[in-house]
């Protein structure tokens, strides 16, 4: 009876390698982003240049609206005006903390800090604008960021001390409120204190913005109303210790600073636990992928016992037979591993479309995705090759065997 078993073995191997590769890629990429997010936003254990601690944003600061036409492309405009090439307009990240309405985040990759709020914030801040105006009015009043240029010219004396802006948590909200840094000062400990004021808003997506989850907006508003502050201060610092010193300094000046240090400290245990958990998860999937790939390849080779007999009849040596069979299986292994990694990458990349992950900064970076993908492809493939050798050794009888 004829049966279509053309890809039977290959399918088995591909499936056995694909799924673990996908899980491994995903767990590594997502685990890494989880750890990074925790480090950056709960522990402030930041490896990069600076973190924006705008936890005082809601406690201080005026929001002074000015008017001017909306630039067609604000990022280009900023570049053009300032002559600064290194502006990571789409690469900012400001994460709202969910406690006490404080907002803080990390930033790197840019020479200029520009902070934005989403449309809900804008609406609250500018109640005279109707919903229609938010959606349809264009251009809306906005200040061309001379302030930014000025701040840059005046304050960015130390190239290495510049604040850096990081990956955007920007989700293409309808409107982004843009704040320009009105002054930047390098403190004695090397940190940068930025005083910023709101300069306008835009609905352009390429302006990096501050994402404030809508469910927290009311809390933010309430906090601001209660505190009735007119000054906002953004603090860039390099280490948590610097941040603490700055916070203490601000407190000593009579400013109200919501310093979440104690809370952050309590998060350390969580971070370690979560870090271990995410590592164990990746390890588990790693082992799963290795075991699965190993046995799939070994079984694949073993199922070719008859074929090995054929090659033996044709005169090939044992080594050549194993090599030949493995060559054939590697194709399936590679397809499985690569396809699995690609699916893993797609899953990781799709996290871009889950707003809550943006808010929590759990979007894997390109590096994390690539690391997960490479690991997710190499580990199962390597295990598969070992499995193929093991399977090969078991099916090729020595020439002197009687059982041949």
């Amino acid at each position, binding site marked *: 009876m*004829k*049966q*279509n*078993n*053309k*890809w*039977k*073995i*290959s399918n088995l191997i591909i499936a056995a390698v694909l799924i673990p590769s996908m899980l491994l890629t995903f767990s590594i990429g997502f685990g890494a982003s989880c750890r990074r997010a925790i480090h950056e936003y709960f522990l402030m254990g930041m490896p990069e240049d600076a973190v924006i601690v705008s936890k005082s944003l809601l406690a201080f600061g005026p929001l002074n609206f000015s008017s001017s036409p909306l630039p067609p492309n604000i990022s280009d405009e900023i570049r053009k005006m300032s002559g600064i090439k290194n502006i990571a307009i789409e690469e900012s990240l400001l994460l709202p903390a969910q406690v006490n309405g404080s907002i803080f985040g990390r930033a790197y990759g840019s020479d200029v800090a520009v902070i934005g709020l989403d449309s809900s914030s804008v609406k609250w801040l500018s109640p005279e604008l109707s919903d229609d105006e938010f959606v349809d009015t264009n251009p809306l009043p906005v200040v061309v960021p001379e302030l930014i240029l000025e701040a840059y010219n005046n304050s960015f004396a130390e190239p290495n001390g510049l604040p850096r802006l990081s990956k955007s948590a920007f989700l293409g909200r309808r409107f982004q409120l843009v704040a320009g840094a009105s002054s930047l000062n390098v403190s004695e400990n090397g940190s940068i204190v930025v005083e910023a004021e709101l300069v306008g808003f835009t609905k352009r997506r390429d302006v990096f913005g501050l994402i404030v989850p809508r469910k927290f907006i009311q809390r933010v508003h309430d906090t601001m109303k209660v505190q009735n502050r007119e000054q906002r201060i953004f603090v860039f610092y390099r280490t948590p210790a610097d941040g603490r010193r700055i916070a203490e300094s601000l407190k000593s000046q009579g400013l109200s600073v919501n310093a979440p240090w104690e809370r952050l400290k309590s998060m350390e245990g969580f971070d370690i636990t979560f870090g271990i958990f995410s590592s164990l998860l990746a390890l588990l999937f790693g082992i799963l992928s290795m075991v699965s790939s190993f046995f799939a390849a070994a079984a694949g080779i073993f199922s*070719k016992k*008859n*074929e090995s*007999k*054929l090659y*033996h*009849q*044709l*005169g*090939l*040596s*044992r*080594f*050549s037979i194993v090599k030949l069979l493995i060559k*054939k299986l590697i194709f399936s292994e590679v397809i499985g591993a690569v396809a699995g990694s690609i699916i893993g990458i797609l899953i990781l990349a799709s996290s871009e479309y889950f707003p809550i992950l943006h808010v929590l900064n759990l979007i894997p970076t390109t590096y994390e995705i690539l690391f997960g993908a490479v690991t997710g492809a190499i580990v199962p493939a390597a295990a598969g090759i070992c499995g193929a050798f093991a399977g090969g050794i078991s099916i090729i009888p020595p*020439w*002197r*065997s*009687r059982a*041949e």
Partner: protein
Amino acid sequence: MKLSSNPAIKFEAAVVDYSDFRLGPISLEFKSNLACIVGRSGSGKSTLLSLASGVRPPTSGKVFHVEKNMSSLSERTRSLLRISLISFAGQHPIFPEEETIGNHLTFVSKLRHAENKEVKTLLERFGLFDKDNKYPYELSGGELSRINVLRALIGRTQFVILDEPTAMLDRENADRTIEIIIAETIKRKLIIATHDELLIQHAKEFIELSDGKVFLKRNIDVS
């Protein structure tokens, strides 16, 4: 590797021991261009052919291929010798499942340093020219059996060893296969285990096995 000008396969008290069967001791030499081995099922024909083809070694005694004792050679040398010297078609055709017949035969032709057009010629001679794009599971047992013989004829190996090449064939295809086999005897030596009377009629050497021993050996002089 220097080979004899008059290639032969020679058995010297060769014995193969299985737990429930013993072949030999056998001492004989295949000299003619067509040797037929006959005998009842289980008499040891396939075992004798596996010895002659170098697929397996004797438990004791020696088997010489063009004056070389394969058991004394390294695996690599033995492999090279077998590839260049012997082609073997077992009783049950084996083919790689995921390769087309054409691809597989191309692989074999490369292995034996033959030209690919030879494969095409053989496929035509066997009436299988339209099968090269087929996968083994798409072919009937008889077709696979013929391709099994065809595969053994690829290249210029000095010995072609066939185990019951016509057993699974209808008379018409068996006759065509025998015709091709006989034509090959002009160029090289064939050792064939068979029950086919027509094939036996063309044999120059006739060896009958019974219970693992040579029951009758006869050279047929056709001069």
